[in-house]
């Protein structure tokens, strides 16, 4: 965040350079066409300026070849840009499987961040350099948007669902974090800092300070507090399906649909359990809407995710 004048934010993520390259291409093509138009207008305006009131210019009704040329060439150029922009977007859309998962809750007007190891931060996000980081984001109230200009990425945080984004920081430093979607009175103060650290420093930061319990452990406690474990057990004949190994697997629903269990499905099953019923079970689970906030909900989601990652069978 130095003070010297610049035209670009820092290129601090893996895709920053790629987005900037496309941006430069667009700027170059735009300058070419803008200058072409300005130059032609200038030349025509000077060369053909009215010299006497009664001069009568020759009629030129149009020329099909020209019309086709200036329709097809720009169309071709926009198609290059379209394919380039869409493929860059598409290729960088899905996070790698081994991404570090961090959980974000937006609320008027702050960002609340939970690390898998249990650290919690407000309006600051510490991440290691050179590692893919995936954010799973929820909001307590209105729409927010998580925006890191130096990473060239933003994603809206929409009530009623989880949205995700991911990035890989390539440069150590401190970068702006902005809320980009207008969210009410203090929208412009819903800002923070992304701190990119060398992996070793990041490890030190994780282990420093007050000792935290990992997020999945907090989630497990919530799971027990809310008595989820009375039904969701491994025992045969349990009233609810076992949750061990369920995350990321395909599950058969009562209506015949097959669903891959993801974060949004778990969220929905907790808040609106009757929406999708697993085959072989009764729709008896009560809703937890209004009994749990987004941050705690994310802990339970993290816990259920952890049941698939390390084959944990402590139920």
């Amino acid at each position: 965040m130095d003070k010297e004048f610049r035209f670009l934010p820092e290129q601090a993520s893996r895709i920053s350079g790629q987005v900037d390259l496309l941006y430069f291409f667009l700027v170059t093509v735009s300058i070419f066409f803008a200058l072409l138009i300005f130059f032609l207008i200038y030349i025509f305006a000077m060369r053909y300026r009215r010299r006497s009131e009664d001069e009568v210019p020759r009629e030129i009704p149009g020329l099909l070849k020209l019309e086709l040329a200036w329709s097809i060439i720009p169309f071709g150029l926009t198609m290059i840009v379209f394919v380039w922009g869409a493929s860059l977007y598409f290729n960088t859309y899905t996070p790698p499987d081994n991404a570090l998962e961090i959980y974000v809750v937006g609320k008027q007007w702050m960002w609340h961040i939970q690390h898998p190891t249990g650290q919690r931060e407000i309006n600051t996000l510490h991440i290691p350099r050179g590692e893919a980081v995936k954010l799973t984001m929820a909001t307590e109230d209105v729409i927010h948007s998580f925006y890191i200009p130096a990473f060239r990425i933003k994603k809206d945080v929409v009530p009623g669902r989880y949205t995700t984004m991911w990035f890989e920081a390539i440069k150590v430093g401190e970068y702006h974090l902005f809320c980009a979607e207008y969210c009410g009175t203090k929208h412009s103060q819903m800002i923070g800092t992304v701190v990119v650290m060398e992996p070793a420093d990041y490890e030190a930061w994780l282990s420093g300070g007050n000792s935290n319990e990992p997020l999945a452990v907090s989630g497990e406690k919530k799971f027990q507090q809310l008595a989820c474990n009375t039904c969701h057990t491994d025992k045969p004949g349990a009233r609810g399906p076992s949750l061990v190994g369920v995350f990321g697997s395909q599950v058969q629903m009562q209506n015949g649909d097959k669903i891959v269990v993801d974060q949004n499905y778990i969220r929905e099953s907790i808040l609106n359990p009757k929406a999708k019923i697993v085959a072989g079970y009764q729709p008896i689970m009560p809703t937890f809407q209004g009994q749990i906030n987004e941050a705690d909900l994310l802990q339970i989601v993290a816990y259920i995710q952890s049941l698939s990652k390390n084959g944990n069978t402590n139920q």
Partner: protein
Amino acid sequence: MSTAVFNPRPDQLDQDSQTHRWNYLNVGYTIKSWLLTHDHKRIAILYLISVTLFFFLGGLFAVFIRLELMTPAGDLMQSETYNKMFTMHGIMMVFFFLIPSIPAVLGNFLVPLMIGARDLAFPRLNLLSWYIYIIGGLFTFAAVLLGGVDTGWTFYTPYSSTYSNTNVILAAVGIFITGFSSILTGINFIVTIHKMRAPGLTWFRLPLFIWAHYATSLIQVLGTPVIAITILLVGLERLFHIGIFDPKLGGDPILFQHLFWFYSHPAVYIMILPSMGVISELITCFSKKKVFGYHFIAFSSVAIAVLSFLVWGHHLFTSGQSIYAGMVFSFFSMAVAIPSAIKVFNWTATLYKGSVSYQAPMLYAIGFIGLFTIGGLTGIFLATLAVDVHVHDTYFIVAHFHYIMVGGAIMGYLGGIHFWWPKITGRLYPEGWARFAALVVFVGFNLTFFPQFVLGYLGMPRRYHIYPEEFQMLNVMSSAGATILGVGYLIPLIYLFWSLRHGPIASANPWGATGLEWKTPSPPPTENFERTPVVTEEAYEYTPSREKLKESEVV
């Protein structure tokens, strides 16, 4: 009847009148003769006065925004007040100035004149549309007086439907009501253009201004009901907690964005298409030359109207919309750039080997082409998925749409107002002042909005009351430019007023333009034409054929 010889009714005579000729302005001076008029020209004047008021009111909010943004800290007003400022600026400018400006003022005045008709097809509906507009305006104005609204002109849910504590309902009702005036104007134009063209005036002899207004009317009639429905749903949710958009009530906030932009993106073309129509008239007149590629310009207006309904999803690239939907919308957004490019190239080609002169309307037209070109090209950036993810909701967007709506739509509007001012008022405006003002507007505009492209790419989000210090220099440049721009808008206000009394009397056709509106006196009589004109030539016949030249020499 349009063929009737003009014959003023004795009860409409004004005793003090010293003019010998009767026109639509001096047939009556009573308030009633204005407020109950069925004359499309008088209704156009009513609209001219009201949209001008809203323009300067909206501009006043912009003044406060730019003053506040001179410094990074929030030192002039509270965040809550700032949020109301940009909301009211947006609502006033979009719904009460830009959308009605050219169609309801110039379109109302000129559509019947240009096609040789006596009035619009439904004169009473036309008057009704102005009353509806005013009633809608009063609701929104009441929302301002009672404390304002802070949702942004986009009214995104669930902020607008649940969380905002401001006068959302009042402002929304105002916009809901005003939408109907837009629909009525659109219906009136469509029917008039279909049914009331003068003998010989075939579709491909129509001025391109008419084609542009026809395309605009299609969008108004097809699109506006959707925003009305959307606003109604927001109101229902806010008042009766019916879950439509707020997920806590079982709704979907993204649904609102789809519905809102299904209207509001085409609405951008409601603002810019009429302006493009104006530019086609100006470029041909001040080059004394037939327009290059008439059919391409005419059909590009229709193509824009059709494609405009297929691009709304480019406002949702970062909202979590499916990536495949994003690709489809990206593709169509690229495609809609082509008809706009066709227009720009054809206007430029029209200048080639023309007889180009630089009266104020032409300066506005050339300014329009320059600014619209920049606005259009930066639109491609936003249609490009990977780039939009970075610049969405930043000042890059703010700069882009001001280049289209202010650089494009308002330049066209001012160019048109100057061009037809002699026809509307019967007076000429002072040319020197007008050229000077056009230059001031152009310079002020670029200084205001060009720095915002850089600000946006650097990452400054829009709607920020307080911002990091490194953005200050560009913001100060922008505010300085806005001062110049503001002066540029005030100068015409002053000399146009002045010209009403002191301007030289205008002849029927001061520019030597083609088009039926110039074949009737300035200002026109209430009936528009003493005899229904018969059209025997193409649009923009600035070059008489040899035979016609000989005839005129004989005469």
